[in-house]
């Protein structure tokens, strides 16, 4: 004899055994817990409850007096328990018994701990570090960094070891199996995305690694300005700025070479260490596309990309790979990439130096300008020259500095650049400035150059034929100046022309 209670279940009154009600309640609790983190979890539980209500209604209509334990259990079995949802939803792994296709995965993992191979897929040079990474189960980029440091620290001996390993280890096609990998982030980059990638991996704000990279440089700048501006002899050691500045710069370059770019959506997810499944890929692609405002409305592109990711994923999974393995990353590396990076870094370095030179020139002009201004009229004459001075000054010196500052600030606050034409406009104005600077220099120097001549009377006999050949011995004119070491040098005098002044017979 069981107690029956009436429950108000989704706007229906359902008579149900108390014990059955307990079972139902526990089941709903477990559902709620299972879907607690899920987006729309409430709705899902609601839908399932609704289905229960429908089935209860059915049974009552068919003549049942009340809902029994058996009924509830039956419906629960057909609906499925929360634990069962997981196995149905995600691809198979541990349950080799119920889903036979996972034996593939079992074998793959069983192999790894036993032997060290070098990797066929994940290679920059010979795949030694890639293979090591799979064997040790750490991120291949980390292995490469450590190896690079080892090479430097052991004065190159580690390089020999690398070659030995390259010869000794057999190659094997393998998939890297780590959940969170260190990438460069090409979407949030100022130079190469090294800082953003690091920030994503360690889950810190982007500006922190950036500042760390720039810090020695900034401190070095400031201290050197102080040292030179205040004219007292600073003999103290320049330890922090000197050594550190160089090291961090090299570190940045090494990271630039070693770390791969996170291009596909699944790589971006790996970078942040998020779970790779359809929902997160969708979200990643969504946020990617929102970044490019004009593409946000292009649903076709989004679908294609998403389905591509999805398709790659499906293919991988059909090969029985475990669910937490990252998909095979296409090797976008190799020696070519490393050399490319070195070139890029070199040009960047030169660009930075040029910038600094311009900034220094500007500062010099500003500081000395006030004093020099009255002297200006001694050098610059005339309307055109004045114009040239101002245009050269503004366009050649001030403009690049302003442009660089705006670019820097934009990158730091992450604003998207408005138009590509802006760059061209700035560039052409700068070239105008350069030209005016050159013209200015030419005109000034012309004003300041003089010529003088020597007049001499020369006796000449009438030539035999009616042709007179005049030859100038141009070794005779010379001048002497002394250089910075105090040595006097004798220079050949510049020869312009000779002309006959008066010919008298």
């Amino acid at each position, binding site marked *: 004899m069981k107690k029956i209670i009436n429950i108000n279940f989704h706007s229906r009154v359902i008579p149900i055994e108390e014990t059955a009600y307990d079972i139902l309640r526990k089941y709903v609790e477990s559902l709620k817990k299972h*879907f607690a983190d899920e987006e729309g979890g409430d709705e899902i539980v609601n839908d*399932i409850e*609704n289905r229960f209500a429908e089935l209860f209604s059915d049974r009552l209509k068919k003549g049942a007096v009340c809902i029994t334990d058996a009924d509830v259990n039956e419906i629960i079995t057909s609906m499925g328990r929360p634990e069962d949802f997981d196995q149905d939803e995600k691809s198979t792994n541990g349950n080799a018994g119920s889903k036979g296709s996972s034996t593939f995965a079992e074998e793959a993992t069983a192999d790894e701990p036993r032997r060290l191979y070098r990797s066929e897929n994940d290679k920059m040079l010979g795949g030694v570090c890639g293979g090591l990474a799979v064997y040790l189960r750490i991120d291949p980029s980390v292995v490469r960094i450590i190896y690079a440091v080892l090479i430097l620290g052991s004065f190159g001996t580690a390089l020999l070891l690398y070659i030995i390993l390259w010869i000794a280890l057999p190659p094997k096609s393998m998939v890297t199996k780590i959940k969170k990998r260190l990438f460069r982030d090409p979407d949030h980059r100022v130079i190469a995305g090294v800082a953003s990638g690091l920030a994503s991996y360690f889950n810190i704000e982007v500006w922190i690694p950036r500042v760390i990279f720039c810090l020695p440089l900034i401190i070095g700048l400031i201290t050197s300005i102080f040292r030179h501006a205040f004219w007292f002899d600073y003999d103290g050691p320049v330890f922090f700025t000197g050594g550190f500045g160089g090291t961090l710069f090299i570190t940045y370059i090494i990271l630039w070479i070693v770390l791969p770019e996170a291009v596909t959506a699944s790589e971006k997810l790996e970078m942040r260490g998020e779970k790779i499944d359809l929902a997160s890929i969708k979200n990643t692609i969504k946020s990617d596309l929102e970044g490019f405002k004009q593409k946000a409305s292009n649903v076709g592109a989004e679908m294609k990309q998403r*389905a591509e990711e999805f398709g790659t994923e499906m293919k991988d999974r059909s090969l029985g790979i475990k669910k937490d393995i990252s998909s095979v990353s296409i090797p976008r590396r190799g020696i070519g990439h490393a050399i490319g990076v070195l070139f890029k870094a070199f040009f960047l370095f030169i660009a930075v130096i040029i910038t600094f030179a311009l900034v220094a020139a500007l500062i010099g002009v500003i500081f000395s300008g006030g004093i020099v201004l009255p002297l200006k009229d001694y050098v610059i004459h005339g309307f055109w020259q004045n114009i040239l001075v101002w245009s050269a000054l503004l366009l050649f010196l001030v403009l690049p500095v302003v442009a660089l500052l705006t670019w820097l600030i934009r990158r730091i606050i992450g604003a998207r650049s408005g138009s590509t034409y802006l760059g061209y406009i700035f560039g052409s104005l700068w070239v105008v400035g350069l030209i005016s600077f050159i013209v200015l220099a030419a005109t000034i120097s012309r004003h300041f150059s003089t010529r003088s001549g020597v007049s001499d009377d020369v006796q000449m006999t009438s030539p035999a034929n009616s042709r007179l050949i005049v030859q100038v011995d141009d070794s005779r004119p010379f001048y002497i100046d002394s250089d910075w070491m105090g040595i006097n040098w004798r220079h050949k005098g510049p020869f312009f022309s000779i002309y006959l002044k008066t010919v008298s017979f």
Partner: protein
Amino acid sequence: MRKGILEFCILSIIRRGEAYPSDIVEEMKAANLNILEGTLYPLLTRLKNADMLTYRWVESNSGPPRKYFSLTEKGLAFYRELETTWKELANAVDALANKSEKISENQ
């Protein structure tokens, strides 16, 4: 069953007409694919949140109102992509399974 294939099946069923969850389970059983209803509800909700599906409530005398799901435009486009991917996969697996030449020994 693999998650992606499941989505593909569900969308294929809904594409043919408005369907509610029970219907979908029945269809799949008819095609010899057994899934739990409890797997279906979360999937449908996710697809709906991704704007692939839309639903409407249909009142019924014999029970609580039911959600009838149908494909959106986005869903249809997604379905096409899934279809392509599935075909590629099927072809790939077929091709491998039908190969008869020996694998060479020089690995």
